[in-house]
């Protein structure tokens, strides 16, 4: 037992050192982030907490794209909203260019929010139905003090041209319901780009769109990222779209990042049993798929009110080690450069 503990602290040390190196130059740094929501019982105090995000660490460099992959209810959206400073962390801190978010006040907070663009999941829900496209796009600029009418107009035209809604004049007076789903998502993208952000947070930007336009929107995001040197956090449940978009992938399960790796390693060499299951469950169009059953673990993600002790995947895990997995929380083990896995199977790596 002492052996494991020693080993554990060593692994944590190396991981911490790696993190420190990255943190110095990073755009965004999330440290030991915990976001818990209180469960109240008719005003008689707290009955428990929903541990929506429970100890998340990562750093994002300038111009870097990362993807966060996980099932619904694993805390992806809570993590994203904490980054957008819409939720207060229960514990831990988020640093943007070295400044902790919790200390930003009034004007600084507005400044911070203008540096990050937000692409919502459901474009129709994200656009006010009673505003035309001109007003939708003008509003963030008015709020952020771009007072010259001419400048606002120029920026709107540029943004619309960039998302390929051309000629822009045709779209300005339209209302969201007059546009197709793909066009609506372009307006959302244009709005996110208007204030020239340094980072874009995209929450399942294509999951509500038709298969035929998904790729188009992803390509558009890719070209915007390249042209404006953006950092992007791409949140999704669909592994197959990740590959065309980002290098680093974080796999999230029950409020924690259980594997941090490169997309190529997810595809060819997944380590964590949950990542393996995700790979197995994602199909490519192939008629042979119909011939055999998929080898996926049964059951569903645990409740985040009382998450399982130890590794949170152990009740579903086919490779569970008795007496270890359900007792102790696995630390990150470095299995390769740029691959960290929170799983006891790799304790000797």
């Amino acid at each position, binding site marked *: 037992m002492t052996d494991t503990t020693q080993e554990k602290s060593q692994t944590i040390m190396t991981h911490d050192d790696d993190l420190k190196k990255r943190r110095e130059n990073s755009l965004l740094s999330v440290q030991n982030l915990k976001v818990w929501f209180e469960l109240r019982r008719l005003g008689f105090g707290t009955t428990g907490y929903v541990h929506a995000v429970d100890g998340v660490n990562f750093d994002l460099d300038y111009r870097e794209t990362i993807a966060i992959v996980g099932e619904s209810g694993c805390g992806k959206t809570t993590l994203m909203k904490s980054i957008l400073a819409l939720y207060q962390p229960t514990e831990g801190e988020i640093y943007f260019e070295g400044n902790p978010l919790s200390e930003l006040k009034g004007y600084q907070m507005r400044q911070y929010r203008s540096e990050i663009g937000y692409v919502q999941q459901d474009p129709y829900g994200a656009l006010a139905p009673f505003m035309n496209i001109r007003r939708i796009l003008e509003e963030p600029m008015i709020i952020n003090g771009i007072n010259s009418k001419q400048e606002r107009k120029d920026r709107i035209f540029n943004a619309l041209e960039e998302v390929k809604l051309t000629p822009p004049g045709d779209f300005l007076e339209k209302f969201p319901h007059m546009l197709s789903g793909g066009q609506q998502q372009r307006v959302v993208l244009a709005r996110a780009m208007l204030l020239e952000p340094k980072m874009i947070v995209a929450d399942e930007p294509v999951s509500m769109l038709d298969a035929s336009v998904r790729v188009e929107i992803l390509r558009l995001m890719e070209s915007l990222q390249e042209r404006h040197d953006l950092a992007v956090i791409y949140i999704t449940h669909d592994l197959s779209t990740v590959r065309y978009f980002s290098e680093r992938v974080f796999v999230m399960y029950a409020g924690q990042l259980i594997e941090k790796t490169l997309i190529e390693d997810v595809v060819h060499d997944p380590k964590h049993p949950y990542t393996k299951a995700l790979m197995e*469950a994602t199909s490519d169009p192939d008629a042979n798929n119909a011939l055999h059953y998929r080898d996926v673990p049964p059951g569903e993600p645990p409740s985040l009110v009382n998450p399982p002790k130890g590794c949170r995947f152990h009740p579903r895990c086919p490779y569970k080690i008795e007496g270890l997995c359900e007792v102790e929380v696995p630390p990150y083990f470095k299995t390769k450069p740029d691959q960290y896995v929170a799983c006891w199977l790799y304790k000797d790596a």
Partner: protein
Amino acid sequence: MAADKVLNVKDLKLFFRTTKGVVRAVDGVDFTLERNRAVVIVGESGCGKTSLAKAILRLLPKNVDTYSGKVFLNDQETMKYTDEEYRTKVRWVKMSMVPQAAMNSLNPVLKVGDQVAEPAIIHNDMSKEVALQQAKKMFQQVGVPDDFINRYAFELSGGMRQRVTIAMSLMSLPELVILDEPTSALDVLTQANIFNVLKRIKKELGVSFILITHDIATSSELADDVAVMYAGQIVETGDASRFFDCPLHPYAIKLMDSVPRLRAKQEPDFITGKPPSLLNPPTGCRFKDRCPSRFERCDEEPPTYNIEGRTVKCWLYAKEGTNHND
């Protein structure tokens, strides 16, 4: 008769009246389904997939303008039945459906067991006790613990609710089940588990399936045959292995190219433009405005050609194919 056909649809049409005019949601659809096979109907949203399911099962809204064509179930013409005959002889007896977003279609104030048992009580004259026993059996079949029959829908997760609706569709042991986007709102692991259930049901109960979806990658989990739908018409049919290897119709080729692949290094493509309005579909081929291989003849309505057991509705195959209707 070469093969045992469960369903044969001929020139099925379903038009709706709206304030803007007549929407030609299903416009002359032909296809057949052999016993114990699964056909996948793929297409973009708004191409009439769900309307086709409703037309086959005769679940029509009030604003129907035209409803015509022929639907043969086991060589029986069902279009001749009156609504009452259809209700007692076909719907939920021979054919049932798992509707879109089915997990939200359970009644919140009834126990799920009672809901699942209901079709058997009504259609198969079972007593409630027998029907509940049958419901338990079906729950086991779809992988729901059988004591769940006393629970309410809100006590179950999305995946469990979807399994319950599948159990409900199987209650009267139908020959054909229509699945409308059965997994699109579910997580990937749950999705894979549900497809495992469907594969097992197909093998053990010998049910045939029509699977309606826009997700080609996951549809391949169940597909024996594929039918591609575009703007109210079926533009290509064929068996799944040949379709996934090499689709024929330009739309089907584009559609296959737009699927992001996880394992193969292939850049996905997208289809420019948008599908035509079904209020006023273009004359001739309906895909011509988005088609990369368009030529003069596309202004005429293309016939359906037979090519080695597959059908394709495109002028490009005028030389190789034989006309389907000859």
